[in-house]
C-alpha cells in the first residue's frame, strides 16, 4: 500500500457484514481549511511553499503508482498538528482511481471550485486533473480564496471553464512573480 510521509497512513482494515473499518493514522491537527482559517488566511509565501512542496511530493508519489486522487481540496489535506511546523497529509481516497499511463478516466467526480475544466466538459481526463486542483489549493493557501469561486454553482462552473486566472486581490502584491507563474502554469 501507498506509504508516504505526506499521505495519511493505512494501519489496518477490518470488515464485518455491514461495514468496512479503515484504521488510519490519527492526525492531531484539523484539515488545511481550518488551519489557514485560524491564521486569518494569512500565510507567508515561504510557509505555503513548504506545504505545497510536500503536497506536491505526495501527488507525484501517487501518480507514479498510477493513482489519481480526483478530489484534492483544502478539506482533504489534514494537518499533523496545529503548529507552524505542521505537516500536511492527503486523505480521503474515496474518489481515487488507478489508471494506466495511456488510460483516461471519464467519471465526473470532484468538488466545484477545485475541479478541472476537462472534467466539467465531460471530456476524458488523466492525472493532470489533480494538478489543476493542486493549483487551486496553492492559490487558496496564498490568498485565502479560490481562483474560481462564486455563490452560484453555475457561475463557478462558468468561471472554471472560461475565466482567465486573475491576481486581483490586494494580497497578491506581496507575493513573488515566480509563485504567480507557477499558478498560471498549473491553472
Amino acid at each position, binding site marked *: 500500500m501507498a506509504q508516504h510521509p505526506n499521505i495519511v497512513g493505512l494501519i489496518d482494515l477490518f*470488515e464485518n*457484514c455491514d461495514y*468496512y473499518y479503515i484504521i488510519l493514522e490519527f492526525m492531531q491537527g484539523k484539515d488545511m481549511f481550518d488551519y489557514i482559517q485560524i491564521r486569518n488566511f494569512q500565510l507567508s509565501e515561504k510557509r505555503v511553499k513548504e506545504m505545497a512542496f510536500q503536497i506536491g511530493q505526495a501527488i507525484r508519489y501517487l501518480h507514479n503508482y498510477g493513482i489519481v486522487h480526483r478530489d484534492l481540496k483544502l478539506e482533504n489535506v489534514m494537518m499533523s498538528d496545529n503548529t507552524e511546523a505542521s505537516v500536511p497529509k492527503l486523505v480521503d481516497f474515496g474518489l481515487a482511481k488507478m489508471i494506466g499511463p495511456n488510460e483516461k478516466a471519464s467519471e465526473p467526480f470532484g468538488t466545484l471550485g477545485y475541479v478541472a475544466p476537462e472534467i466539467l466538459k465531460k471530456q476524458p481526463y488523466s492525472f493532470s486533473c489533480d494538478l489543476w486542483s493542486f493549483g487551486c489549493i496553492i492559490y487558496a493557501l496564498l490568498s485565502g480564496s479560490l481562483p474560481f469561486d462564486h455563490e452560484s454553482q453555475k457561475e463557478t462552473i462558468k468561471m472554471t471553464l472560461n475565466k482567465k486566472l486573475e491576481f486581483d486581490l490586494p494580497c497578491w502584491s506581496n507575493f513573488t512573480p515566480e509563485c504567480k507563474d507557477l499558478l498560471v502554469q498549473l491553472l
Partner: protein
Amino acid sequence: MIKGQHLNINALAPETILINDPSPDATPQEGGLGSGDNSLNMQPLQGFGEYDKGLDESAYSGQLYLKTKTERLKEHWGTLSGNELYFYRKHGDTEHRLMHILTGTFIKEMPVEYSETEEQDIYPVKIVLPPNKSRILYFMTQEKQAVWLKKLREVVGDSNMFDYYNLEDNIGKGQFGLVKLATHRKNGQKVAIKIVNKKDMKPIEIY
C-alpha cells in the same frame, strides 16, 4: 427471559466436541475417531470428498434450530468441520440435510427474539454470504449462542475490530461515512477509524 434460564433443558442434548466424546453413540463415521491417525492434521480441502469417512478432528457439534417457512423452529444437529457446516436431522444421522461452506461468509450476532411456538427467548446467529444470501441459526440459550459464535468466527477468520480498538468521539465525516477517534486496547496508539457502510457503496466501487 433472562440470561441463564434454561426452560427446555431436558429437550437439549449435551453439546459435544466429538473427539472427546465418550458417549457410545458417537459412531466412527460421525466422529472420524475410527480412522485412527491422530498425527494427520486434516485441512478442510484435503478432506474434500471424504465427508462420510470422517470429519475434521476438531469438528464441533451441537443442537441448533432452523426456522421453517412457516416460522416454526425445527431442531437440527449441526456439525462444524473445518470450514464446512453440516446440518443433520438428528444426532447420529449419517446423511446430512444441508451443508454450507463458510469461506467468504460473515458471522453476525443477532438480538434475542421471542419464539411464540417455543414460548421462550431464542438466540440467533446469522451467517451472511454477500451479497444477499443468509441463514439464521437459533439457539435456546445465550451460552450456546456465544460458543457457536466463537467457533464460527474462528473458522471464518473474523477478527472483531472492537476487540482491538476502543472507539471514542466522532472526529469527522468523510466522503463515505463517519470518522471516529479510537485507541488501541493494548498499546494505546491513537488512530482514526473510518467507518464505511457497505450499503452506501455501489458494486462497481468495491472491486
